[in-house]
């Protein structure tokens, strides 16, 4: 493998990482924007999506795509229950929301240990077994599973963007995220909006977990590192800014992947934190944030 090929391979790796980080972080940012709640259980929803896909596909033997759909549906149901029972009473209460979501995270993590035991990661054979040689170069390879993650993530993000920019309810949601009080005065029903936001957010986390399940370690704690990454992305992009989160997800993923490849994985994490601190000090509102929340 030549130097150029390694660079190409790393760019490909970065693109895949960006797409996944983006859908995960956008879901988190959406909930924060609408409800002012930092959902610590977002990583747990991702975990539930992965577990459900593993169970349905590898254990029960359902078709892969059906498993993904059911897993996503399951996380949406859990998300809706959380919204109704926990987040709605806590709306605007940053720390109340934090505690109930931490509590929910504990509950969901214990639930999967209770149902499936704790041992090695839950294994599944990928549905896609082939690899793609990018641009016909033999040594630059991306597995089809990863391309599938990229395709699904891209599809979700484009659909989400169309929904937010082309539909009435999408506008209402944006208005809500920008200024909940004003939106309420305009007669926009915050209850319906926050339910919808939760559906979208949970679906993003759940489907993220579902498509990533053949690629990652499926363990009860699998959501923690992803959540920390999403926090960094959220800060760098500016709290509550969806466009910012998208850009930050790409920037951070490229940064992290390149440093991991050329210097080392542990250094990449430390530099990632340093990057976040730098952004916080120089421009505390993030690259796309205009207003200071809370």
């Amino acid at each position, binding site marked *: *493998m030549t130097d150029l*090929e*390694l660079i190409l*391979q*790393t760019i490909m*790796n970065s693109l*895949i*990482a960006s797409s996944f980080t983006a859908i995960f972080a956008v879901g988190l940012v959406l909930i924060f924007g609408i409800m002012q709640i930092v959902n610590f259980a977002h990583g747990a929803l991702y975990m539930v999506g992965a577990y459900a896909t593993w*169970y349905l596909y590898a*254990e029960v033997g359902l078709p892969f795509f059906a498993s993904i759909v059911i897993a996503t549906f399951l996380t949406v149901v859990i998300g809706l229950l959380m919204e109704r029972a926990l987040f709605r009473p806590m709306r605007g209460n940053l720390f109340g929301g934090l505690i109930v979501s931490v509590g929910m995270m504990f509950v969901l993590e*214990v639930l999967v*240990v*209770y149902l*499936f*035991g*704790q*041992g*090695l*990661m*839950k*294994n599944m*054979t*990928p549905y896609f077994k082939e*690899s793609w040689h990018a641009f016909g170069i*033999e*040594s630059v*390879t991306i*597995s089809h599973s*990863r391309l599938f993650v990229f395709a699904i993530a891209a599809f979700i993000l484009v659909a989400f963007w169309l929904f937010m920019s082309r539909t009435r309810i999408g506008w209402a949601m944006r208005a809500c995220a920008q200024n909940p009080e004003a939106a309420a005065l305009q007669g926009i029903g915050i209850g319906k909006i926050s339910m919808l936001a939760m559906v979208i957010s949970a679906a993003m986390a759940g489907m993220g977990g579902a498509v*990533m399940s053949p*690629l*990652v*370690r499926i*363990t*009860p*704690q*699998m959501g*923690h*590192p*992803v959540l*920390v*990454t999403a926090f960094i992305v959220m800060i760098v992009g500016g709290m509550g800014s969806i466009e910012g989160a998208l850009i930050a997800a790409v920037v951070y993923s490229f940064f992290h*992947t*390149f440093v*991991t*490849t*050329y210097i*080392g*994985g*542990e250094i*990449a*994490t430390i530099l990632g934190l340093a990057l976040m601190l730098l952004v916080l000090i120089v421009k505390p509102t993030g690259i796309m944030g205009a207003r200071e929340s809370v």
Partner: protein
Amino acid sequence: MKANITRRKFMAATGGVAAGLTAFGATPSKLFADEKTVKIGFLAALTGDAAGWGLPGLYGVEIWAEQINAAGGLDMGGEKYKVEIISYDDEFDAVKATVGAKKLLFEDEVSIVLMLGITPVQAVKDFMTRNKMLTTTLVPTDISEDAPYLFAPVEVHPFYNVTAVDYIARNMPHIKTAAIATQNDELGLSSLATYRAAFEVAGIEIIEENLFGFEVTDFAPVVSKLIAANPDVITWDTAYPDYVNLLTEQAYLQGYKGQFVNCTLDQYEHIMSKTSKEFLEGFLWQFPDLDDPIMQGGGTHFDNAAAFYQTYNERYPGAWTAVSWEYAAALEMWRSAVSQAGTFDPPAVAEALRSLSPVPHAFGDAEWWGEDFFGVNSAALGKWPVVQMQNGKAVIVEMGDVRAWCDQHLDVLKKHFIELGVPLAG
């Protein structure tokens, strides 16, 4: 997945909370009121990130205890004793381990404490020494001169890793260069030092190293860089079994064709289904299947190994790991020492354990070793299997002599530990 009601599930469904509530206030009710009972303490992580290293081990020792109890109990001085396992979740936390150690010793009056190793052991070892409590760890670098009751009776990680590299040096002369990737923690670093020493002795040059952190979800970049260096052999060192799984799959997907040598290859059927039989052919590692013919008697010391393996897999499908049997193997050795000592008294059993020669290790006869490395002979070092993937099955290709290698190349081993800054003893 088969629905199976286990003790803990039953407890949780019924009186678990009530039973739990009494644990703090009152002495737990005696399970075997009319029978003689010996208690065994299990102090490791049952929840949180490190639970994967503790909970499967608890499942294992519970099965071990059941097998003993079903056979009438543990024999000591001509009398049968029922075995009771008392667990305390240390959450891999020094403070929780401190509290748990006091509970197990003073409240439950256990006769031995089984621990995972590293930080919780560091926190309680002085306390255990003061109270003359027999304690076992799975991490030999925990043992030290000032802890005479702390043993590493089963795992001699990472020293046994030298045997597979030694096997390569003798049987695969075409291998000249190596690349290493592992996670940056105590296990990874001490193993890295060992592999560096083993490769140096074998005359193999290390051309690429990559240390990654725990938060890695995507192993593609780590593997890309390793493969780009074009090594003859790749090792994931002592990366956690889950990581090994994903790293190996990535190497397959990115077109690696060379040799592997590694500490573990758990769930290799799964890895094979993700890659291919041809790809894994020849993979070298250190952990045989417990139902391997060599493990059924014939110089090894783990009673009913195959039955244990089978029961475990039936009851906890998919939960089997290396630690599933290691805590139980430590208890097997403890049982030998108890029958020799004729008492459960921990210091006396510790003395009997230390006087065992040969030490009945699960992989065959061993001796207590470590004086020149840790300053005390408390790690059972002897033979360790080199396992190779042959035609889709794990086969023990030889029983490597870890002790002979370590005695011969101790200076090289020490040099690399010191170079990486890994503490030699706890």
